[in-house]
């Protein structure tokens, strides 16, 4: 019975032996000690984690009132009383998004080519992979803090942050795409005696272009969402206005800003869906 529970296959299993035996589903983790260790470890961790979270329930209870106010604020968002601030912040966010996406995409194409093992020589590959790894390991907001410290407050720091983050995201996915492409097509171009540039242009580009466009659209979407928080650390955009609104408990203004963000993200998603459908 024990061997049966562990799912071992017997070639000479007789029906008579099996009749009347209990049947259990074979376990996902076959070794019992590992199964128990993982299960108990998980429970212990959960208990420890929940116990160490300090919750001030009285404060939370008081907050429910404000929570309700905030939800209500969504039914009557106030676009006008801080209309000027909202407009400036939104325009700045959009400008940062556009500029950073253009620059980021432009830089990430050569780095993406360099980070693909099948077309780049080893030293170039290592350097490009290093850039990608650094860019991906640092979150936008931390990069923004450092850049604000270096370049001062304002949209320039935000623009540089978003460009830097775009490079890590897009280069990695582009490189993976190039590494997964069809070798035969690319080799056929190479065999015709094309130069390196021609080879990239005719052998590689047509294969990865649709996906590159799709990913770029997706990244523009992400850049806009990120640009909304960069203002929290002084790197420009709508975040500063939003932060002020929360600090002053002006929930109707905050609701208006959040609604604007949601609407713009939805519009971008719709647009990118259309563009992706056209190129693929």
């Amino acid at each position, binding site marked *: 019975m024990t061997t049966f529970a562990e799912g071992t296959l*017997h070639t000479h299993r007789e029906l008579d032996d099996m009749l009347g035996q209990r049947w259990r589903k074979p376990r996902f983790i076959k070794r019992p000690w590992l199964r128990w260790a993982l299960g108990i470890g998980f429970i212990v961790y959960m208990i420890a984690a929940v116990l160490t979270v300090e919750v001030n329930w009285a404060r939370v209870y008081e907050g429910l009132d404000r929570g309700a106010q905030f939800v209500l604020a969504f039914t009557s968002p106030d676009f006008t009383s801080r209309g000027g601030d909202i407009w400036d912040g939104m325009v700045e966010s959009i400008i940062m998004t556009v500029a950073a996406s253009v620059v980021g995409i432009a830089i990430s194409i050569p780095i993406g080519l360099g980070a693909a093992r099948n077309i780049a020589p080893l030293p170039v590959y290592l350097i490009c992979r290093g850039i990608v790894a650094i860019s991906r390991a640092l979150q936008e907001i931390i990069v923004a803090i450092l850049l604000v410290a270096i370049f001062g407050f304002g949209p320039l720091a935000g623009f540089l942050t978003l460009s830097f983050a775009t490079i890590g995201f897009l280069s990695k996915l582009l490189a993976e795409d190039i590494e997964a492409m069809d070798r035969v097509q690319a080799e056929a171009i190479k065999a015709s005696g094309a130069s390196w540039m021609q080879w990239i242009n005719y052998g590689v580009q047509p294969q990865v272009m649709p996906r590159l466009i799709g990913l770029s659209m997706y990244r523009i979407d992400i850049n806009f969402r990120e640009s909304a928080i960069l203002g929290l650390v002084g790197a420009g955009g709508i975040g500063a206005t939003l932060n002020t609104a929360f600090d002053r408990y002006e929930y109707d203004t905050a609701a208006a800003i959040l609604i604007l963000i949601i609407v713009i993200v939805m519009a971008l998603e719709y647009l990118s869906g259309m563009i992706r459908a056209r190129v693929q």
Partner: protein
Amino acid sequence: MLRLESLTKTYKTGDKALQSVDLEVPEGQVLALIGPSGAGKSTLIRCINRLVEPTSGKVWLGETELTTLNQRALRRARRRMGMIFQEYALVERLTVMENVLSGRLGYVGFWRSLTRRYPQSDVDEAFRLLDRVGLLAMADKRADELSGGQRQRVGICRALIQNPELLLVDEPTASLDPKTSRQIMRLICELCDERGLAAIINIHDVALAQMFVQRVIGLRTGAMEFDGAPEKLTPEVLTAIYGEEDWEATIRKVEEEGEEVAAQ
């Protein structure tokens, strides 16, 4: 045992899949349903157990009229009809044994089925059926590790463990090679014979149908075109069902193959 009275199905698109079909299947009769693609074979089978809701008409299973049943009663009625599918339709990420036992879902409660604690009688029956189709050793394999023929055998077990009175079989051999197709058809017909089950087998391959069944129904654009013994399938009849084609070769081949099988 099963009686269809002017069963009609019109899809939302306006396609008339079934046009007033009348059919009576006596107990223990194995019947083949032939016809071109889009003739409504699949729809007919699915209208019987109401996976597709018929537009009008009646379906009598024994003394029960199925088209007016509520959800609860329909579930009870479905237990009496086992179904076998074209692409096997096994739940691929579950084990063979779980797939077979899923045939008992109509009998066991939700918690029992969730915790896989089936009654011992069901477990024994599942082992017996797997032994009968030669897959006992595979009981704890995952369904997606099996070959096509093996999967269809598991599908058969799942239908039979329901302890049905009627089998609804939808293109059982469409995704199998010719040899396995015959083995599966023979297995289904043998099992129906052993258990005295009636069966409606929906099949593309006319030759294969003729080889194994007692009665053939020809369907064309949702209406019955032929009803009779397999020997009565003449080129004229096939032309009426499928349209103009040289049918002599098909029928002759069947006869030769039939002898071969008999000789084995």
